[in-house]
Structures are given as structure tokens and as C-alpha cells.
């Protein structure tokens, strides 16, 4: 085997480790290991590259790596957890910037570059530049830098113009104009496009934007890989390009937004799919979740308070609930049940059902005993209860249930509501709890939903 063969062989090892690692990041138990495996893959690919006999200028390589390490490590170590998203944006941006710079140098070095190399170089330059500048704007917005905090009007028309201009310059370059100045112009146009595309987007949508730019950087890396005949870049870049696109879609879905809506809707425009205009004109959106998410939330909680209601009785879900609680207790999660005096259709309705399912009696707490506990509750799991959790009873004078004592579930760190649909409760009134930011809804039959959550918990 020649030296190049060895390099390629190590590349195969490297990108296999990427694939295995990323797969493992999908599950919370294997995620840490998965990330480490991907990092090892990166190490293998790096060593392989250094074996390549085209490598020279060792001093410059060491200087570059040293600078990068000196900046990257402390930044990643010291960043506050709350500032994580903007840090990811920044790391993504520099990746895109690196691709843009590589493309620039490749263009400047080459003479009469073949089309099959020139097209990927131009593509990588455009996407890399968009990603670099777009990510920096995303960072500035999340960091709440003053210049980015302002409201910006929708810039769709300008963006279309910029995109057209970028494309025109790209075509001229590909057609054979060997002028370095045109390539700089290409990078500038794409960069401005990156800025103006991200600037009007509101802070809440930034994760979707960052994920999109992440996929972009991946695509640009893959294009650079084709230009450089480097399999590691092609595979790793495309892997990120594809998985990043799917991830972007899933994130947008989870927020009830479409990706197009995020990028072309302007500031806060469009609104969520489930947004309903309230009587007093306030836009309200419910957040729906999945069994897998609820399972993770519950497994990593210290205290879960189950709030059963009529819905649990109708669905005959008490056994499923007891199974879920047993599964959680095996994971050292404390589970209590909050029993409202009028939960269900008769006093003691819930106690009977839960006793039938062999729930230990000392876990069933009366309203006055449990209300003090909600402040230290990680997840309040509401199963088919509605009016007994309605905060309107506390503070909305006009509400028909104003003054009714309720379970203070809104004091819990997060609330998960299992519910058949958005229909209102027995009293026929809307529940502001469902629109609370910390509330997520899992729609469906209570029994089926609880069983789904249990099997997801078991799979963790």
C-alpha cells in the first residue's frame, strides 16, 4: 500500500467514528460517549492528514493550531450555560469562514482550474461566506449586542437582489474570468447576504437559523472536499449538511414554525400554526411535545408530581400511570400524586382508581399538602386534568371558577399536559396554563400516551 492509501484508510476509520458518534448523541445515555467517539474520529482524520506527503509549512500549521486552541479552549470552557447557543453560532461561523478562506486561496493559486474543481470552489466560497457572516449576526443577536437588538424590517427584496448578484458573479467566474478581484467581490456579496438574511429574524427563531447555517457549513465543507479530492471532507461535510437539514426541520416543527416562515416571515411575522387570537388580542401558542421528550424530562427530574383528572379515569389509564411511576422510581425519581378534591367526577375518584392500580397510599397527597411542594417540583405531569389546575381561578376575577382552590402546578419548573385535544374542561373555560412558556402538551389518549412515555423511559 502506498502512503496515500494509508491516509485514505485512516480517513475511512475517521468518518466511521463520526457516524457512530453522531448516532450515539441521539440518546441521552450514550450522548457523552458519542461526542467523545466523534472527537476521536476527528483526531484520527487529523493524524491521517499530517501523514499526507503534500503537507509542508509545519511552522505555519503549528502557529494556526496554537492560535485556534488558545482561543477555542478557554471560550468553550468559560462560556455560561445560558450563552451556549451563541457560542455554537460562533464556532459554526469560524468553520464557514475557514471554508471561504480555503476557497479563496485555492482560486488564487490555481491557473485554468478545471470546471469540476472550480464549481465546488465557488460554491464553497459562497456558502462558507454566508455561514460566517450569518453566524456572526446570529451571535450578536443572541448576545444582545446593541446594534443587532434593534427591530429590522423584512429585507426579502434586498436579499433576492443580493442572491441574484452573487449568482451572476459566480457564473462569470465559472465562465472563465480569472480575476482575483471578482472572487473577493463574490465573498463580499455572499457575506452581505448572510448579514441581511439573518438580521430581520427574531431572537426566538435563532436556534433554527443557527441549525440552518450549521448545515450550510457542512455543505460548504463537502464542496471543498470535492475540490481538494479529500474523502474525509466530503463525507463529514455532507453528513453534517444532511443531518443539519433534518435537525433544522425538526427544530422548526417543535416550535410550530416552518423554516420558510423563519427566513421570510420577517420579525415575528407569521406566528405559530397553533396560535389563536385571544379575546383581548394577545397571541397565544401552545407547545406540543413528544413522548420521547417527556420521557427524558421525567427521567432526569428529581421530583415528579402526577396530577390526575377525569381524563385519566375516562381512558382507564391508572395502571399505565402506576407503571410509569414505578419505572421512574427505579431511576431514583421521586413520584407523588396531587389529588384535587374535585378531580374527576366525584370526591375520591382518583384515590380509588390509583389504589386499584396498587399505587402506595402515602404517595397520594391532598391539595393542601402538595401545593407547597410544587416549588421544588421539576415536572408536573398533568393527566387529563384541566379546571383544577387553571390559574385563572386565582387571578381572573371574571372567570366562572374564580376563587376555586386549585393545584399550584404553575409553580413547578416545567409542566407537561397529557390531553386529548385543545377542548376546554368541564367548566367550559380556557386554561391559561396551557399557553404558559414552561408548559408543553402531549396530545392523545391518556392511556396510550402514558404507555408511550413508559416505553421511551425504558429505552433510555
Amino acid at each position, binding site marked *: 500500500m502506498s502512503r496515500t492509501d494509508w491516509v485514505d484508510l485512516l480517513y475511512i476509520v475517521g468518518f466511521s467514528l463520526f457516524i457512530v458518534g*453522531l*448516532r450515539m*448523541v*441521539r*440518546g441521552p445515555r450514550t*450522548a*457523552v460517549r*458519542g*461526542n467523545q467517539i*466523534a472527537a476521536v474520529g*476527528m483526531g484520527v*482524520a487529523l493524524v491521517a492528514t*499530517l501523514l499526507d506527503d*503534500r*503537507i509542508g*509549512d509545519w511552522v*505555519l500549521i503549528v*502557529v*494556526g493550531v496554537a*492560535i*485556534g*486552541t488558545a482561543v*477555542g479552549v478557554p471560550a468553550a470552557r468559560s462560556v455560561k*450555560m445560558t450563552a*451556549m447557543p451563541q*457560542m*455554537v453560532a*460562533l*464556532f459554526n461561523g*469560524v*468553520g464557514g469562514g*475557514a471554508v471561504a*478562506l*480555503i476557497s479563496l*486561496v*485555492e482560486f*488564487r*493559486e490555481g491557473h485554468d482550474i478545471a470546471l*469540476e474543481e472550480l464549481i465546488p470552489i465557488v460554491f464553497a466560497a459562497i456558502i462558507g461566506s454566508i455561514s460566517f457572516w450569518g453566524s456572526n449576526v446570529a451571535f450578536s443577536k443572541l448576545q444582545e449586542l446593541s446594534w443587532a437588538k434593534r427591530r429590522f424590517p423584512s429585507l426579502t427584496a434586498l436579499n433576492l437582489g443580493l442572491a441574484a448578484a452573487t449568482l451572476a458573479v459566480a457564473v462569470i467566474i465559472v465562465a472563465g474570468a480569472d480575476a482575483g478581484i471578482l472572487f473577493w467581490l463574490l465573498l463580499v456579496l455572499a457575506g452581505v447576504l448572510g448579514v441581511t438574511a439573518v438580521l430581520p429574524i427574531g431572537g426566538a427563531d435563532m*436556534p433554527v437559523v443557527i*441549525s440552518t447555517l*450549521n448545515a450550510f457549513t457542512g455543505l*460548504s465543507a463537502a464542496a471543498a*472536499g470535492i475540490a481538494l*479530492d479529500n474523502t*474525509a*471532507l466530503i463525507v*463529514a461535510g*455532507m*453528513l453534517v449538511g*444532511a*443531518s443539519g437539514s*433534518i*435537525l433544522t426541520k*425538526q427544530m422548526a416543527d*417543535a416550535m410550530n414554525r416552518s423554516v420558510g416562515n423563519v427566513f421570510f416571515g420577517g420579525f415575528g411575522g407569521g406566528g405559530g400554526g397553533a396560535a389563536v387570537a385571544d379575546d383581548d388580542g394577545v397571541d397565544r401558542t401552545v407547545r406540543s411535545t*413528544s413522548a420521547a421528550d417527556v420521557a427524558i*424530562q421525567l*427521567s432526569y427530574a428529581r421530583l415528579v408530581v402526577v396530577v390526575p383528572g377525569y381524563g385519566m379515569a375516562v381512558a382507564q389509564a391508572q395502571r399505565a400511570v402506576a407503571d410509569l411511576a414505578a419505572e421512574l422510581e427505579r431511576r*431514583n425519581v421521586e413520584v407523588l400524586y396531587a389529588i384535587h378534591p374535585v378531580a374527576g367526577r366525584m370526591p375520591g375518584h382518583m384515590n380509588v382508581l390509583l389504589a386499584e392500580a396498587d399505587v402506595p397510599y402515602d404517595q397520594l397527597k391532598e391539595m393542601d399538602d402538595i401545593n407547597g411542594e410544587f416549588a421544588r417540583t421539576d415536572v408536573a405531569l398533568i393527566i387529563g386534568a384541566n379546571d383544577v389546575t387553571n390559574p385563572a381561578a386565582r387571578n381572573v376575577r371574571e372567570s366562572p371558577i374564580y376563587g376555586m382552590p386549585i393545584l399550584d402546578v404553575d409553580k413547578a419548573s416545567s409542566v407537561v399536559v397529557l390531553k386529548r385535544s385543545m377542548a376546554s374542561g368541564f367548566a367550559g373555560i380556557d386554561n391559561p396554563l396551557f399557553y404558559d412558556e414552561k408548559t408543553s402538551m402531549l396530545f392523545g389518549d391518556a392511556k396510550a400516551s402514558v404507555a408511550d412515555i413508559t416505553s421511551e423511559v425504558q429505552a433510555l
Partner: protein
Amino acid sequence: MDLLTELAILVLAAFVGFEVISKVPNTLHTPLMSATNAVHGIVLLGAIIVIGPAEGFLNEFLLVIAIAFGTINVVGGFLVTDRMLGMFKGRKPDPKEPAE
């Protein structure tokens, strides 16, 4: 390598990418994005390969920046992901056994 082989690899990698992220719980969206983010730090290799044959101060200067950028992407990306995922472990203390 000829272009068609590279395109074949590209397409296959795309399908693997789609498969790898078939179903991810919302809670893990951000860490996963961060992990994939670290993986495209692979561009560091591109910069290292190009700097060998590169000539002239400007080209080498641009590539040193590219190498620094790529390194930040790689080390920062993996470290931040590791810290994020560490939160999941840290949030699961054993209530029955008090911490040392």
C-alpha cells in the same frame, strides 16, 4: 479520484446523514446540533492540505487564519458539546444517597 466516485460518496453520505438524525427528542436538539457543528470542523484538514503548496505572504496568512478558525471549530465544538451533555448527568443526583 474521479468526479463520479466523489459524487457517489457525497450522495451516500447524505443518506447516512438523514438516517443518523431520523428521530431526536427536542431536549437533545441543541447538543446534537453542537456535535454536528464540531464535525464540520473537518475543514481544518482542508486548510492544512492547502497551506503546503501555497505561495506568497497573503495566501499563507489567509490559510493560517483558516487553520486557526478550523481549530476553534473543532476543539470549541467538541468541548462545548461535552459540557452541554454533562448537564444531563449532573441533573440526576440520587436523592437516597446524599452527595459526598
